[in-house]
């Protein structure tokens, strides 16, 4: 796979897997308003995934299409962040995960809008507006959960502590990524760290939540080494295409 196809595929996998996790809340959220909000965010992410899969498929030019990429790859072929595939847990963990991801995704898309690759820049321009709202919505919730009741504070703090070791992977860049960064096609994720860290620190402080100390970070998703959770997610997400290949409606 060319570096650009792999790059698009990795970001598409992030968006699809997190989008699918959010879709699991549909009909189950604590209130109708939030049911709609989480479904909207999930749909935005799945839309971003589609644009990126279509681009990856075009670059590969081997007859693959977006549906094959989404529905006919097994877990080791997925290249998403481990952060995206973890189970939703409770509402606090769901919200904190969206927040930690969106705090990265928003500046990531802003940076990608300046990509020398016109297609990526166009996808970024559309996605940035969506991610900006995901960040605003999730940040407001983090503040209210953290600075809410004793129980919501406890759950939000547990979510931050649980998810924290999965945040380091967002800033990874391997040799394939480096090639694109040097070519002005990809944004250097390390350059986004100050903006991410500032957003996260400010929101956690407003939420009266403790900022986790620097420490060991999980890794592996970008290379296809996943947690045991991804296989279960794919089993559900891919069931229809596996059971009825080529089904359309």
């Amino acid at each position, binding site marked *: 796979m060319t570096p650009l196809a792999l790059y698009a595929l990795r970001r598409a996998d992030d968006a699809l897997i997190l989008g699918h996790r959010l879709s699991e809340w549909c009909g189950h959220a*604590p*209130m*109708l*308003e*939030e049911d709609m*909000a989480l479904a*909207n965010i999930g749909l935005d992410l799945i839309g971003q995934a589609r644009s990126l899969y279509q681009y990856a498929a075009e670059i590969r030019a081997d007859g693959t299409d977006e549906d094959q990429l989404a529905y006919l790859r097994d877990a080791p072929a997925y290249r998403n962040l481990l952060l995206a595939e973890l189970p939703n847990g409770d509402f606090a963990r769901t919200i904190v995960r969206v927040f930690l991801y969106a705090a990265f995704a928003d500046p990531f898309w802003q940076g990608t809008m300046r990509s020398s690759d016109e297609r990526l820049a166009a996808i970024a321009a559309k996605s940035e507006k969506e991610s900006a709202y995901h960040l605003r*919505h999730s940040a*407001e919730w983090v503040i*209210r959960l953290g600075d809410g009741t004793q129980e919501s504070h406890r759950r939000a703090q547990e979510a931050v502590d649980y998810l924290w070791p999965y945040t380091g992977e967002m800033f990874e860049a391997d040799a394939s990524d480096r090639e694109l960064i040097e070519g002005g096609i990809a944004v250097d994720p390390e350059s986004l760290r100050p903006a991410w860290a500032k957003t996260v620190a400010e929101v956690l402080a407003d939420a009266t939540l403790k900022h986790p100390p620097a420490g060991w970070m999980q890794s592996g998703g970008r290379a296809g080494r996943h947690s045991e959770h991804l296989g279960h997610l794919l089993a559900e997400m891919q069931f229809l295409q596996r059971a009825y290949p080529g089904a359309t409606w």
Partner: protein
Amino acid sequence: MATPNTPLWEVFIRSRNGMAHKHVGSLHATDATMALQAARDVYTRRGEGLSVWVVPSAAITASDPADKGMMFEPAESKVYRHPTFYEVPDEVGHM
């Protein structure tokens, strides 16, 4: 889910520039910021709006349905209040 922590809000949306905000429904939210976001998420998913207002339902003073006789029936017999008793010249165009 009506709880003391999530009071009711009324949602008004302006669909185009120059139009008035119109009442579209209600929702529950913890505070004004979250109510505005919920209004966006629940009521503007199909491109309905350019501007959203949310108002605490408790801030609205409503007429009493039992008063509808004295409030509204007297207007029903005043057809002369409708501007339909004179002819508008064609040159005026759309009014």
